[in-house]
């Protein structure tokens, strides 16, 4: 039997120094919005009540999170949950109403316009849902745009643009105009434009929602590949749970501007914080997401404990064959310590979606 693959330790908090650290972030739209976050009474109101009472809409309500270097951090929620506002607050495309945002030790909210532009030019890049390409420029000039406004010399920026165009698989389309390309190809241009400036952090605002399912899958794989190759920190906004589970190291679920739960995919599926999340993850094929530690049970005295051994972070799907082939329960072991066992019953319940 092949040795079970060991997965990384699941993380709920970032252990290394975070790239981005956000605390008590609020964004309220409307008249005299700034009074809402400070007032315990107003900030406790529901969205509807707040609207009736003050005429304000709270899009983001006291969000906290940390993002580790090189991590893919997914913010997921339905439309109107405030996720797009949240990602725009990170580079102050939308000015937050209250809170703290620290990027590489620097307070972003304290940055003056010039410093903010510098950050946008060199540290952050964003990919948009509807691409946001310049229709009057060719692909290569679109990719150059960020470098051009930084004042990079023409020869240098064309060279760099050609590099990223090849990186995202757009080679041959350099001279086309955006409206001559399919949606998927256009979003590759958006991706190339974001990569051209070699930013530390890539922000994706529902980049694939406007694409066909098949193309969406290609583009998701493209992002996974790019993440492997360039290793950027990524913040990814989506309303699609399967996309979140596929891409995200960690996922933050938002509802009505609030964070409902954050954690790895298996934490969300295995231990939903409330009915809202439970409802969300109901249709997820659990065996694909959960690891053995979520379905194991404590060993009983009558268990025969000489079956095959697995680590706790082996995905259920990968252990199904081994468990069913064995005539005794499979042991879940970490560092020689027996954590629990998994038998036919547990594995079947999980595959059938009941566990």
């Amino acid at each position, binding site marked *: 039997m092949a040795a079970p693959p060991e997965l990384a330790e699941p993380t709920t908090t970032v252990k290394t120094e975070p790239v981005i650290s956000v605390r008590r972030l609020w964004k309220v739209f409307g008249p005299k919005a700034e009074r809402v976050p400070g007032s315990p009474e107003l900030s406790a109101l529901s969205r509807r009540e707040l609207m009736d009472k003050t005429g304000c809409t709270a899009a983001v309500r006291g969000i906290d999170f940390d993002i580790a270097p090189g991590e893919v951090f997914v913010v997921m929620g339905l439309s109107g949950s405030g996720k797009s506002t949240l990602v*725009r607050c990170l*580079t102050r*495309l939308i000015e937050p109403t209250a809170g703290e945002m620290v990027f590489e030790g620097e307070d972003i909210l304290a940055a003056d316009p010039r410093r*903010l*532009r*510098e*950050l*946008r*030019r*060199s540290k*952050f*890049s*964003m990919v*948009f*849902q*509807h*691409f*946001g*390409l*310049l*229709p*009057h*420029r060719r692909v290569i000039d679109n990719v150059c*745009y*960020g470098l*051009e*406004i*930084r004042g990079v010399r023409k020869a240098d920026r064309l060279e760099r643009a050609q590099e990223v165009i090849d990186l995202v698989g757009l080679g041959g389309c350099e*001279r086309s*105009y955006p409206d001559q390309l399919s949606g998927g190809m256009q979003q590759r241009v*958006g991706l190339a*434009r974001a990569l051209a*400036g070699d930013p530390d952090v890539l*922000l994706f605002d529902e980049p694939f929602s406007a694409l066909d399912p098949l193309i969406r899958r290609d583009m998701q794989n493209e992002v996974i590949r790019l993440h492997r190759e360039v290793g950027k920190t990524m913040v990814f906004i989506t309303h699609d749970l399967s996309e979140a589970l596929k891409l995200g190291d960690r996922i933050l679920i938002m509802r009505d501007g609030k964070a409902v739960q954050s954690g790895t995919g298996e934490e969300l599926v295995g231990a939903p914080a409330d009915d809202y999340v439970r409802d969300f993850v109901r249709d997820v094929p659990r065996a694909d997401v959960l690891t053995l530690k979520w379905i194991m049970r404590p060993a009983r005295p009558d268990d025969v404990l000489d079956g095959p051994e697995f680590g706790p972070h082996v995905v259920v799907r990968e252990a199904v064959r081994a468990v069913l082939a064995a005539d005794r329960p499979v042991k879940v072991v970490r560092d020689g310590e027996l954590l629990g066992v998994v038998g036919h019953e547990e594995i079947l319940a999980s595959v059938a979606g009941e566990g």
Partner: protein
Amino acid sequence: MTALALPRVLARRPSRGVLLIAALAAFLVLWVVLRGLHTLSLGASQLTPLHHAVNDFNDALGAGRNTNPLFLYFFNEIRLVVDEFVTFVQAVIAQPAFGRPVPLIGWLGVVAIVGYVSYAVANWRVALPAAAGFAFLGLQGLWQESMDTLALTLSAVVIALLFSLPLGIWAGLSDRFNRLITPVLDFMQTMPTFVYLAPLTLIFLIGPASATIATIVYAAPPAIRFTAHGIRSAPHDTVEASESLGATRRQTLVKVLLPAAKRTIVLGINQTIMAALSMVTIAALIDAPGLGKTVVKALQTLDVGTAFNAGLAIVVMAIVLDRVTTAAGARAERARLDTRPTSTLVRRVVLIVGGALTLVAVWFSTTYLWAAEFPPDVSVGPAIAQAATTVTDWVQTNLSPVTGGIKDVVTLVLIDPLQMLLTESPWWLLAALVVAVSALIGSARAALVSAACLLLLVGTGLWADAMATLASTIVATAIVMALGVVVGVWMGRNQMVDRVLRPGLDAGQTMPAFVYLVPFLALFGASRFTAIVAAVVFAAPVAIKVVADGIRSVSPTTVEAATAAGSSTWQLITKVQLPMARHALTLATNQGLIYVLSMVVVGGLVGAGALGYDVVAGFSQAQLYGKGLAAGVAIVLLGVMLDRLTQAAARRSQ
């Protein structure tokens, strides 16, 4: 309880339709009784104290023109600058100058430049007809007049763009400024072209400077509006993407917003040029040189042949200017799709060679007389004028039973009764009716505006003339709307018809209002009816297009559902499409009224009488100056009243 009370409340309040009919009936009854009382009529040469006061004011201004500091350091300076500029442009292409017997650039040079510029901004398919069109102006024997018109138009457009493009950009970027300037532009555009002229002559005197300033005022709004609109409708995503990459406001403006708005801005420039041409021809009334003057003079002597020849020249120039600027707007689109390197190379070669040839042609035209002055012996102008006169004579002798019949029937059945109703009623009775109608079909606000406008109309001392003009306006608008609904529904329902008719309508709208007078003068002679027909032809295209677009924008699902329910075509039109397009109908009425009003005034030249005549007479006779100015104000008041009323009705229908 409430459920029972509700129907009774509804039953007790008669519907607006019933109230409207009741108001009209009451008016008719009282009219019969009180007819001829308090009509406030004023003879053609009679003046009120107000008119005298304006005359005196004008005289005082004239006397103080060179001592009053406001004039000395402000108005006179503006006038001087504009005058210098216009004179310079005229010296280049139109008038003898720089100690030469001919302008700096003669006909050959101008034709070559027109062809070359047209090719540069568009393509040869536009360039050849443009050059041919300008050569034709020379053949008509109207070269110098045409160049005067062109010089004035171009001067006005250049000055107008100098400030309207920055203003448009500002309005595009700033919500506050946009809110501030929109009502101003609305007002500038709803005012009939004519009325700019009178107050401007008060300040800037009669002549090319006033004409150019009036043209600038009239032609600037489209460029401001289109520029602002183009910048505002740049895709939000793209602007945000640019910001997210760290672009400064300036970079976003120059690299994202302006390129995205380019097409719209060029369209705005096109509108500005067409408006300028239209105004320059009308400005002939305040002694602006050019083709307009030829038309006005010919109209005043009823010389249809000459008027036709000059009118044709205006049309040719309008078509050339329109085609070239429209093609310039479309070119950016097409050129970028054509990525073949050879065609760019060919184009570059043609541009260089053509440029050299153009320079040679310009040099010829400044050096040799044959290239400077259009050879008079090849003129076809007299032939055209002769042919037009012959046709007119033939029509007037042979078709007069038909044309005269139509004219008499419409005049007897529609115009006369309505005019009698309006002008022979006591002014307060009619005013009460108008206020009541405003309240019923518009809103309380519209009623207030109407009341204010009516009182001010009484104040101008031209109540009876204003009512006569109102009668013509109503008749013309009714015909425009009848045409608008019939043709508009046809176009809206039939793609083929739309494709055939729309270019004609577009062309009709770009023509200066002036030229419509000529053919109808030939057909019907000078009369109120002639002015009305010209107004209908001028106003119908816009009404037709608005109705057609309204019909087309009715949701296809609704039409499909109605068809599936077994509606006949007639039922479909009357029960689904027209009711759902009723906002478009009221909008069409609004636009139709404004266009008609601006034209019924121009019709003063061909016998429309009333306010139009007062204005025209005011320009030509010093003692009628005050009355003419008051008539201009009266037209604005009518315009504001009708505009607010129909807009209120449109809002109600939404």
